[in-house]
């Protein structure tokens, strides 16, 4: 589904992503873990085309590195950004409608909306509320629901657990798991390495702009280096 080669991102001469390779196959849930400032968000933003990048990003065969961002959702790529990025001054229902902005199929949109409300019942209760007045966890749910409304084939998730209470983190990951179980391809960025690896099939470890390890999730969980650096040495 996704094949990234020699992807580079820099901010005014300072390299944040230094030529990384990354693959995600159809139906896989792959995670990208790493410390603060490793370049995970920059990588996802480059993949979502909201950050200029060099290299090759092949999505279902096409090199999308020069595509404008607004073309992606129509082709099946959705991003749930770090910090949620909900439209604070739009209602929950309007945010979800924005997720389906590119779609014309009214009946299908309605059935997807029902499915999202099923998956995230809290959103249904809050449909008329302004998104800016939701709690952090609810905003995260909304950001995920909004992405699902675009019926993506590839979902890019940036730190969905950030800033959430443990119970909310559990809920968010349950949603991620059930979406993955329905066959969605997911690239998950997380600092919470243990949790991320526990739901993923494979993982990449990123350190200061480079990918330093790539393996199956089980192998990474067992790897002493990963345990020391990312799993609190357990």
């Amino acid at each position, binding site marked *: 589904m996704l094949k990234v080669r020699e992807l580079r991102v820099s901010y005014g001469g300072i390299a944040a992503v230094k030529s990384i390779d990354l693959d995600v196959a159809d139906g896989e849930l792959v995670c990208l873990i790493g410390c603060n400032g490793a370049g995970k968000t920059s990588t996802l933003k480059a993949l979502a085309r909201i950050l200029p990048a060099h290299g090759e990003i092949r999505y279902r065969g096409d090199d999308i590195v020069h595509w404008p961002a607004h073309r992606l959702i129509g082709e099946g790529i959705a*991003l749930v950004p770090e910090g949620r990025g909900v439209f*604070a001054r*739009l209602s929950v229902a309007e945010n979800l409608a924005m997720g389906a902005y590119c779609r014309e199929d009214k009946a299908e949109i309605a059935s997807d909306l029902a499915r999202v409300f099923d998956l995230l019942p809290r959103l249904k209760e809050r449909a008329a509320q302004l998104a800016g007045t939701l709690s952090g966890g609810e905003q995260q749910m909304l950001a995920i629901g909004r992405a699902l409304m675009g019926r993506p084939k590839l979902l890019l998730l940036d730190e969905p657990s950030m800033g959430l209470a443990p119970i909310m983190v559990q809920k968010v990951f349950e949603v991620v798991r059930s979406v993955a179980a329905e066959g969605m391809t997911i690239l998950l960025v997380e600092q919470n390495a243990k949790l991320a690896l526990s739901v993923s099939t494979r993982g990449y470890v990123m350190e200061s702009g480079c990918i330093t390890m790539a393996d199956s999730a089980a192998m990474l969980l067992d790897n002493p280096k990963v345990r020391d650096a990312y799993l609190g040495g357990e």
Partner: protein
Amino acid sequence: MDTFIQQIINGLVLGSIYALVALGYTMVYGILGLINFAHGEVVMVGALTALSIVKVLSGSGLPGPVVALLGLMGAVPVCMALGFTIERVAYRPLRNAPRLAPLITAIGVSIVLQQLMMLGWGSTYLSFPQLFSAQPHSLMGASINDLQIMIICVAGAMMVGLVLLMQKTRIGRAMRATAENPAMASLMGVNVNRIISFTFVIGSALAAVAGLMVSANYSIAHYSMGFMLGLKAFTAAVLGGIGNLAGAMLGGVLLGLIESLGSGYISDLTGGVLGSNYRDVFAFFVLILVLVLRPSGLMGERVSERA
């Protein structure tokens, strides 16, 4: 005759016009964070375009309101095209430039438009033909004429239309989303450049209508009329809270009322030292007060995004 009621009526007429122009400033600011100082000139181009059409048709025996409508049908598309072009030529290339650059460009665009229009329409004051019956109707001890009624009603209808467009339609929702977070909107599939063009086009259509209204109201049009009107409408937008649509409408109407009541009573208040020719002072007095006391404007609070 009741002076107070009369000044309220005059203020509402003036305020309706300010509100239409203020909306153009505030919509562009809301989406780009840019003050389009050339917007007053778009109003002027609308006024002069309408004037030429109206002059040609006013001898044709068509009823005045029809002539006014035809004037609008000419001025509105001209201004829409102008707004679209200004954004494409003057602002888009500077999208990522320092903030001062588009501001200076806006002033340049203003000067160019004024000079071009002066070449075509001359530098003298042009009289705007009377299209509506001057016969006043009496209302609560004051008088109001057909033109004033038309201005208030048409401006009101356009504002209702704009609110419906913004709140109830797909493109309106996309405009609000883009104003809040362009990168996120583009990830929803919104073509942000197209939304920005659309915003300029809508604002310019409102400006064209305001242009015809203001020149019909004062029976005069002039190549430099956009400057003062633009500044006042900008003041109205700041008063309401720039970037906020309801604020621009409220600010426009309030400014019209302040100016009208102020100039109506200034001579009494100052013992005859200052006359109603000081009417323009009020707008700037309001602007200074707002900037000092409440820079975010009357409706400028925002729902902030929680972490």
